[in-house]
């Protein structure tokens, strides 16, 4: 039974699929216990971001978005996991059984709630300026932004916090490829550079924390709670 609401082109469906899996990867970052899996999930999320950019680029016949996809793949899917693994020491990356503030089903339910919130937040924006694939990418990107922030607050381990941060950025850009497809390429490059600096600096800081405090559990950082 064909549904009149659904746009039937393959590109649309594939972009939707990328969006769905992107959201799933974001959920995964909330709930995965092993640091290495988190890193892999982040890389996967970045690949999906690049896929969405490439698909939108195909639709709009814009070389610009292809370039964005390429930048994303190189910077986020390849360099960042490599950097994080290089800078943070083995003991940090190989950690398993990360403890969380909330248990995993609760976190996942909250993340679902945030997704619904993002959907309702994005609805009036879509209505204000309807254009193309915005309807898909904007709510999903916003959801990833919110869930990323939630990940940072709920995680108690250094590297997953950083990955939550980076996934916030991915979320913003996931919306960005649809709402700001022709952002100057120089700005995109600079943003990729910025993300790399985040990974490098935070990786190094994690390493130092591990050396000094003997643990990368952020829960152990309570020295400065004197107010």
């Amino acid at each position, binding site marked *: 039974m064909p549904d009149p609401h659904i746009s039937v082109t393959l590109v649309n469906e594939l972009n939707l699929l990328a969006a769905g899996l992107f959201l799933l990867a974001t959920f995964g970052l909330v709930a995965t216990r092993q640091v290495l899996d988190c890193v892999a999930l982040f890389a996967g999320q970045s690949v999906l971001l690049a896929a969405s950019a490439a698909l939108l680029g195909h639709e709009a016949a814009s070389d610009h978005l292809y370039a964005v996809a390429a930048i994303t793949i190189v910077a986020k899917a390849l360099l960042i996991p490599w950097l994080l693994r290089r800078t943070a020491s083995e003991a940090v990356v190989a950690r398993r059984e990360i403890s969380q503030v909330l248990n995993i089903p609760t976190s996942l339910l909250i993340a679902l709630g945030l997704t619904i919130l993002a959907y309702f937040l994005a609805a009036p924006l879509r209505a204000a300026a309807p254009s193309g694939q915005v309807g898909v990418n904007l709510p999903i990107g916003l959801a990833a932004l919110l869930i990323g922030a939630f990940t940072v607050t709920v995680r108690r381990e250094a590297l997953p916090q950083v990955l939550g*941060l980076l996934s916030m950025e991915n979320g913003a850009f996931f*919306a960005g490829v649809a709402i700001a497809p022709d952002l100057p390429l120089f700005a995109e490059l600079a943003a990729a550079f*910025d993300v790399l600096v985040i990974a490098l*600096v935070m990786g190094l*800081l994690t390493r130092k924390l591990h050396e000094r405090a003997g643990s990368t559990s952020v829960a152990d*950082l309570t020295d*400065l709670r004197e107010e």
Partner: protein
Amino acid sequence: MVLWFILTLPLIAAALALWASRHRTVPGGVTVLATALQLLLALAVAARCASGAMVTALPGWVSCDAFGALVLALCAFAGFTAALFSIGFTRRATQPMEAGRVRRYFVRFNLFLVPVLAVPLLSNVALVWIAVALTTLLSIFLVSFDQSTAALEAAWKYAILTSMGAALALFGVLVLYWAMRQGGAEDFTWSGLAAAAGAMPPLLVKTAFLFMLVGYGTKAALVPFHSWLPDVYSQAPVPICALLSVVETTTLPYVIVRLLPLFPGKAGDGAGRWLLAFGLLSAVGAALLLVQVKDLKRLFAYSTIENAGIILTAAGLGGAAGYGSVYQLMNHALAKPFGFFAAGAALLFAGTTEIAAVQGLGRRSPLAGAALLAGALAVTGAPPFALFLSELSILQGGAVDHRFLPVALLTLCMVGAFCAVLYHVTRMVFGRASATGPLPAFPRSYALALFVAFVPVVLLGVSLPASVEHLLRLAAMALAR
């Protein structure tokens, strides 16, 4: 051309500091020279902008108007004084054998200055976002210079929270770009956006503004998002505190306030109300928190939050108070480094920053005691100092526009902050000396930094030169909506 010089000078200085690895003194010397040159260039730019001209290096990407020039000059000044202070600081904080640490400190110091100076010089909004994000990232290892667990913890909080803010602001930037394209404009610069303001969908602009306000507000440590700032200031080296404090109260209000022209006519009230809410919350919250402070550097940290709140409140009030907002921004950026340097000197003689443990600082070192007292008076806006005039002009401006409730609240928190800071500081300065032991010599670079930072605070408190006032007036036009 001059703008390119300003941006490349710190890079050159960083390279030189890196290259001169053997010598302990070279990195510091190079840094002081470079920052002095930056200051001169920035003042030259400001002078040109004060006559109403735009200084442009690359149209659409790098240019500077009066507001930008003001922020640029203030940051350059703070950079210069902090560099001066850093020489003495690194000498005292490191062992003779640790030339590497000193070199790293100055390399990072210079690298940090690049994005700080870039924020007012860049005109493309997306690039401004990147510069703001980089100011955090490049200052993390300056904050954790001490290498202790506590310092690393502070650096971690700082990095995580402000980067979260940056991600939110990024979303705001992208939505703003969307709004601009919907409005049919091409030019993603401050001026281009202001020109297209009428055509953009108001809902999108408002969304973008809120995301950017929250995002940049986290970096500016506005009150619901301020928790990282006192921790960072209690752990970071004194010159870094001074510099960060100036960065947070100049560049971030700058990028937030720059959005105001996007709300033409009636819509401006909405944006103003948000600024007012966040500003007042920060000012009042910080004034309350000031009362219970136990650490000298945290004291100045909360005062920074309070001032950021005052600046944004005044910008939110708009109208006659808009000028006061810019004025306050300038005076605070001049006074706060002095306050931190005084705290650094006090730390040197008292041995601790814990307020309750220190007494009779004035007895032990009259210079440090006097400096601390003067610093406390300067940052809270006591009469002989410049901040008094700007606070007065904000209150006057608000009263002229019949905005009595915000004015009353602002007055209350200004007075409250004044009493709280003075209460803590007088207890430290007067009374019988608590610390004993050999008296350390007052480092020359400390004295020099204190003096250089002190001069403008007093001079501007006595009289405002016509050229500076003109620059301020031009800068305040950026707030007009």
